[in-house]
C-alpha cells in the first residue's frame, strides 16, 4: 500500500470511531447543580460556617441521654451496657443511702478488681447520673444540682478578687427512678427461673453452686472434672462453662479470682438444702 492509497479505509463512516468508553460513566453536568451538596459556608469573611447548613447527625437515635424521662434513659443505658449490669446495679445498691464520693469510688474500684473495665469509677457514676438513676446530694440526700455556688468576693490590699468557693462534701444517692430500676434486679427469681427452664440440669446447677460455695471458691477445671462426664451432659454435649455462665448472669456466682458464690447464690443454696 502506498502512502496515498487509503481506499481501504473510511474513518468518516466508521461509527466505532465516535465510541467513547467513558461516556456512560460521565456525570451529567446539566443536572448537576440540583443535586450538589449545599455549601456549609456562610456568606462573609473568614469562611465561617453557617450553623443552619451543617449536616445534622442522627445522634438522638444512639445517645442514651436523649431519652425524655429518667426511666427511658436508665432503660437505654442498661440496654447499651449489657456486660456491666452487675456493676451498675451494685452502684445503685451502694447509693441506697447517701454515700461519700471517695467511699463509692473505692467500692467500685474493689468491684473492678476482678472485672476489668475501661470505665473509671466516676465515669460510671456520671453515666448513671446523666440517666437520672443517681444524684449528687448532701449528707441528708438533698440534691446538689439545685445548689449553685457563687465564687467568694474577697478584698486583698484594697482590690477585689473572685476566689473559688470551697467544695461541699458530695454524697451520691439513689433517685426514685434509680430505686425502681434497682427493684427490677431480683437474682433469687433469676436463679429459680434457671432451674425451671432446664429442669434436667437441676442436679448440675446445684453441684456447681456447692462447689463454688467452698471456701475460696473453685476453678472451672475442678467443676468440669466433676460434672463433664455426667450422662445428662452427653447429648446434647454440655460443659461446665455453660452452667457457670448461666449462674453468673443470674447473679448466683461471681469471679473473684476463683468462681465463688454471691450472697444471693448462697441464700438460694441454703433454701435448696432446707427443702
Amino acid at each position: 500500500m502506498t502512502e496515498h492509497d487509503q481506499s481501504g479505509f473510511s474513518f468518516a463512516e466508521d461509527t466505532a470511531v465516535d465510541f467513547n468508553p467513558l461516556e456512560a460513566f460521565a456525570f451529567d453536568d446539566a443536572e448537576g447543580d440540583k443535586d450538589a451538596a449545599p455549601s456549609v459556608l456562610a456568606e462573609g469573611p473568614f469562611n465561617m460556617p453557617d450553623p443552619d447548613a451543617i449536616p445534622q447527625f442522627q445522634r438522638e437515635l444512639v445517645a442514651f441521654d436523649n431519652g425524655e424521662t429518667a426511666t427511658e434513659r436508665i432503660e437505654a443505658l442498661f440496654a447499651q451496657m449489657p456486660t456491666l449490669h452487675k456493676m451498675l446495679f451494685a452502684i445503685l445498691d451502694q447509693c441506697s443511702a447517701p454515700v461519700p464520693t471517695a467511699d463509692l469510688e473505692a467500692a467500685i474500684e474493689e468491684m473492678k478488681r476482678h472485672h476489668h473495665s475501661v470505665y473509671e469509677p466516676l465515669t460510671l457514676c456520671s453515666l448513671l447520673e446523666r440517666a437520672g438513676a443517681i444524684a449528687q446530694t448532701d449528707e441528708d440526700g438533698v440534691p446538689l444540682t439545685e445548689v449553685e455556688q457563687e465564687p467568694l468576693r474577697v478584698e486583698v490590699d484594697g482590690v477585689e478578687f473572685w476566689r473559688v468557693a470551697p467544695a461541699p462534701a458530695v454524697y451520691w444517692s439513689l433517685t426514685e427512678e434509680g430505686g425502681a430500676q434497682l427493684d427490677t434486679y431480683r437474682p433469687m427469681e433469676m436463679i429459680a427461673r434457671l432451674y425451671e427452664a432446664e429442669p434436667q440440669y437441676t442436679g448440675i446447677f446445684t453441684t456447681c453452686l456447692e462447689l463454688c460455695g467452698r471456701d475460696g471458691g473453685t476453678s472451672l477445671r475442678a467443676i468440669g472434672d466433676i460434672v463433664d462426664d455426667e450422662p445428662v451432659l452427653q447429648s446434647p454435649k454440655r460443659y461446665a462453662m455453660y452452667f457457670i455462665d448461666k449462674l453468673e448472669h443470674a447473679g448466683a456466682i461471681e469471679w473473684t479470682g476463683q468462681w465463688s458464690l454471691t450472697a444471693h447464690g448462697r441464700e438460694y443454696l441454703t433454701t435448696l438444702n432446707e427443702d
Partner: protein
Amino acid sequence: MTEMINDVTEETAEAMTVEDLAELCDSRAATYELLARLYRQEVDQELLDELIATDYPVSSGNDLMDAGYYGIAKYLSNAWVDPLMKLSVDYTRAFLGSGIDTYSAAYPFESVYTSEKRLLMGDARDEVLAIYRSCGLEKSESWTVGEDHVAVELEFMRVLAHRTAAALRADDEERAYSLINTQRNFMGDHLSSWVPVFLAEVRRFAETGFYLGVADVTEGFLEEDEALLTDLVSDRN
C-alpha cells in the same frame, strides 16, 4: 502562674517608671504563659490546684476579662466531682473534635482561619515560623504540630514580654523598644487577625463555663494588650 492575677490593664503607659514598665511586662508574660498553657493541653491536677488557689480580679477594666474571670471562678466553685475528666472532655470537644469535616471544633491553628480551605500548615505557619527564627527561637522537639498553634503564638509573646522586662532592667532602652515593636507587629499581623474568629468558634463548641471563661479572658486580654503595645510604640515615636 502567680497566686493572684495582676491587674495589668488599668495602668497606662503614661507616667510609668522603667521598673513599673518592667513589672508590667512580667505580669503580661505571666498571663500569656497561663493562656498558652490552657490552650496547649488539657488541665492536669497541678494546674487545677493552681487555678483553684488563684484569685481572679473582679474589675480589670475590661468587661470581657471580668466576665471571663468570673466564669472561671464560678465553674471551679461548682466543679466538685471529677473536674479533670469534665475539663478534658470539654477540651477535646472544643479544640480537637471528632467530625469528618473541617467544622467539628475550634481548631487552634492560624492557618485554618487564614487559608481558603481551612487547611493546616499553610502560609501563616511559614510566616510565624520565620518570625520565631528571626527572634532566635526554634520549636521544641516535643512540639509535634504546627507552629501557628495559638499556644505557640501566645508563648512567643510571653518570651518577648519577658525579654522586654529584662532589657528594661538592664537599661537597654533600644532593645526594649525593638522588642515592644516586634510584639505590636506580631499582635497586629497575627494574633489580632485570627484569634477573635477562633474564639467565636470556641464559644460554639465549648460547653463548660471554664473554657467559655478562658475564651473571654483571652479576647479581653489581647484587646487590652494590643492597646497597651500601641500606646507604648506611639509614646516612643
